[in-house]
């Protein structure tokens, strides 16, 4: 774990608002010179706090109108290894997020689809046929804030 001071936290807040800013712009937003901001950002990257940057695409503009969160229970724990399930689910391109969780489900998945019939196809052909899959609950995302 990395010790952070108020300036580090301010940098993280600014970058969370806009990940495309360079060190000079980040510095300007919080009252640091470009080199000072650059050094701190580098330190946050080396300390593993900032893992990287990724491009944000407009899902709707690219034809992906549906996001569904799935809760998955494995049917036969132990018989089929978790690794088999994890390997197969990660290979599905429409699955963006796979989280192993503790609670009423074993895994949480986020799936993107073009529309509801596309989602149905993914659910039937890809998800329900995964090794060891048991009960699956779907919740379609309507909106997101924060």
């Amino acid at each position, binding site marked *: 774990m990395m010790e952070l001071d108020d300036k580090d936290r301010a940098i993280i807040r600014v970058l969370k608002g806009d990940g495309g800013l360079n060190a000079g712009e980040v510095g300007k937003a919080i009252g640091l010179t470009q080199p000072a901001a650059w050094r701190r950002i580098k330190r946050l990257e080396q300390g593993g706090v*900032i893992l990287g940057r990724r491009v*944000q695409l407009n899902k709707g503009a*690219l034809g992906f109108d549906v996001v569904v969160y799935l809760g998955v229970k494995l049917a036969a724990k132990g018989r089929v290894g978790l690794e088999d399930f994890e390997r197969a689910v*990660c290979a599905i391109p429409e699955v963006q997020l796979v989280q192993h969780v503790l609670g009423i489900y074993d895994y949480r998945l986020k799936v993107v689809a073009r529309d509801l019939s596309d989602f149905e196809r993914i659910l039937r052909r890809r998800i329900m046929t995964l090794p060891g899959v048991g009960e699956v609950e779907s919740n379609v*995302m309507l909106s997101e*804030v924060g």
Partner: protein
Amino acid sequence: MDRRILRHLQEDGSLTMSELAERAGLSSGACWRRVEKLEVAGVIVGREVVLDYRAMGYAVEVFLRITLDKTRSNAFDEFIAAAQKIPEVGAIQTLLGRVDIRMDVRARDLAHYQEIYKGRILGLPHINDVEALMLISEVKNTEALPI
């Protein structure tokens, strides 16, 4: 060609324009024009940083799945407005399904989580039921679209 550019950008968001041009097999001028067009058209929204909250000392991440008392007409709005004021609450999503809302809560440890849960979460308006899933490990996390 636009798809090829987007695929390379999805793979590595830190690429410079000349690296991107080289991978996509374009001159950097042509590549720059295409990226700018995709930005103006709103296909590329921007860039985001990927943060590791565990490295910042937030060891516990819990996903709460909440059903609201829908007999109250303004339940959603009032709940979301109040939940957004809790600093440890990350994304809040409204859902169509068995649960109405899901949201992320990050805490330093289990005692801190307990404090947030008892002190803040359970005080939110119009809650009918709360289910919690605690993150053990993240097996895959990408924003990449199958394009």
